[in-house]
């Protein structure tokens, strides 16, 4: 119940900035249009690249724009608050709360993600549907599995962002690591180019890494490329990464609290 309350606050906090949300949706749509035409040109020359047809490719673009903020691909979200609190020393207060640091921030980030999904996720999808006639989820199962996959995507991304923020325990300032992590995520999630059209062996490697969870896996589920046992395998891999990374987060917190002196002031 506590976590639901935290998540609700996360949701409400982000919903305060209406103009920011509208501006963001507009920007997502502009980029959606640009990439749609780029991919249409690509798929016109190679109509079955990566096992996608042109409609799949354009749909992939708009799913990407919808998930960009939802999974906080660039970084950001509640972990930025954590990094700032580590820098200022306020994290000391977080540490003596009767709730673990990881679950507290995870709940709050899931609340944020829910808000971004409903606004910055849905709105560009509708625009993409109107402008480019993108594909809807392949089946009701696909739609449901997509939502499950999305929660796992946010959790995985949260764990990585949490580790980035926790680097501030040692470096004091997370911004360098944050940007490096964002760059990696951008490329290995398939945001720059779908992972399925990467040349081998880059393709297989990228698909096995946690960042595939951010966009490629949910998108493939939406498009009905992963069904039956393959679907379970896709979700299973996401679960494994989420659990492993959250475990690393916990270990990092205990290492940090033992080793690091909190910035005083």
């Amino acid at each position, binding site marked *: 119940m506590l976590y639901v309350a935290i998540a609700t606050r996360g949701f409400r906090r982000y919903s305060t*900035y209406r*103009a*920011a949300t*509208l*501006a*963001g949706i*507009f*920007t997502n749509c*502009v*980029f959606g*249009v*640009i990439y749609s*035409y*780029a991919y*249409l*040109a*690509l798929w016109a*020359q*190679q109509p079955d*690249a990566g096992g996608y047809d042109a409609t799949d490719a354009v749909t992939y673009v708009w799913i990407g724009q919808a998930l960009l903020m939802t999974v906080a691909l660039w970084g950001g979200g509640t972990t930025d608050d954590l990094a700032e609190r580590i820098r200022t020393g306020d994290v000391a207060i977080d540490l003596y709360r009767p709730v673990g640091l990881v679950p507290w921030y995870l709940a709050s980030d899931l609340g944020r993600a829910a808000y971004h999904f409903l606004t910055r996720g849905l709105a560009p999808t509708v625009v993409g549907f109107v402008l480019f006639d993108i594909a809807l989820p392949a089946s009701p199962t696909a739609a449901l599995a997509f939502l499950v996959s999305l929660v796992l995507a946010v959790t995985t991304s949260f764990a990585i962002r949490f580790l980035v923020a926790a680097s501030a325990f040692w*470096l*004091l*300032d*997370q*911004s*360098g*690591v944050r*940007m*490096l992590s*964002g*760059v990696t995520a*951008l*490329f290995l999630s398939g945001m*720059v*180019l779908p992972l399925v*059209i*990467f*040349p081998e062996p880059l393709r297989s490697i990228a698909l096995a890494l946690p960042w595939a969870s951010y966009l490629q896996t949910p998108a493939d589920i939406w498009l009905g490329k992963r069904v039956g046992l393959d679907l379970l395998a896709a979700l299973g891999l996401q679960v494994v990464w989420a659990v492993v990374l959250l475990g690393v987060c916990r270990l990092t917190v205990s290492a940090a609290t033992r080793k690091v002196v909190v910035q005083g002031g």
Partner: protein
Amino acid sequence: MAEVLDAVREAPRQYARIARLWIRSSLSYRTSFAILTLSSMLITFLDFVGLWLMLHLIGDLDGWALWEIALLYGASGIGIGVADLLIGSVEQIGQHIRTGTLDAMLVRPVPLLVQVCADRFAIRRLGRITQAVVVFAWGAWHVEWTPSKVLVALLMVVSASVIFFALFVAFSCVQFWTQDASEFANAFTYGGNTMTQYPLSIFPIEVVKMLTFVIPVAFVNWYPCLYLLDREDPFGFPGWFAILPPLVGALMCGIAALAWRTGVRRYTSTGS
């Protein structure tokens, strides 16, 4: 009049002084600074790897070879890189309004635009420019140069910066009205940059007309590059569009200055 000229002469010196302070400040977190410089280089590098992977798959994009796209990419990248380095901080104007720091800036004896642009000056953005220069040089290696092409190329690179400069300022002014809409400008600045990385022939003519007459980012690289590559305009626009970028840049700056003045005049402090 003499006062205005004095102010214009003073501005770069004042800018440099503020920028120097920010460089020293960013160096105080050394590890972070090193990683930031590295990643801002990596980000544009991976961007180009994306294009390369795409071209690797299809050989050419709409008849454009990778080196030709490199030319487009490099010109646009240098343009936005220089603009972002020098005045990218103008994006933060909403933040200054919200937190009230703009009031403090207004009473200082340095022009407001200089202060806002020099704020948080980040030398690491040189990483992005370096990468764009390398890509541009590689593309330029293949061009059959003539004196007039050299001139067009020089005008292109300078005007590209000026056009992005104006876009940054003009669209950031929106924040005088809605403080938290900083992302709105991104659609035009970074969006314009992304669009001009591709040959514009992949877009429908309506989009290209818009990019020529409304938000004229087509002049950042498209028209001059058509000339450098001896290509016919696929949409039938005249060849002399190649020498228009300086004019477009000047016009855009005029509009940006107007937007800025209107915004500042309208500004009333948050009062907090």
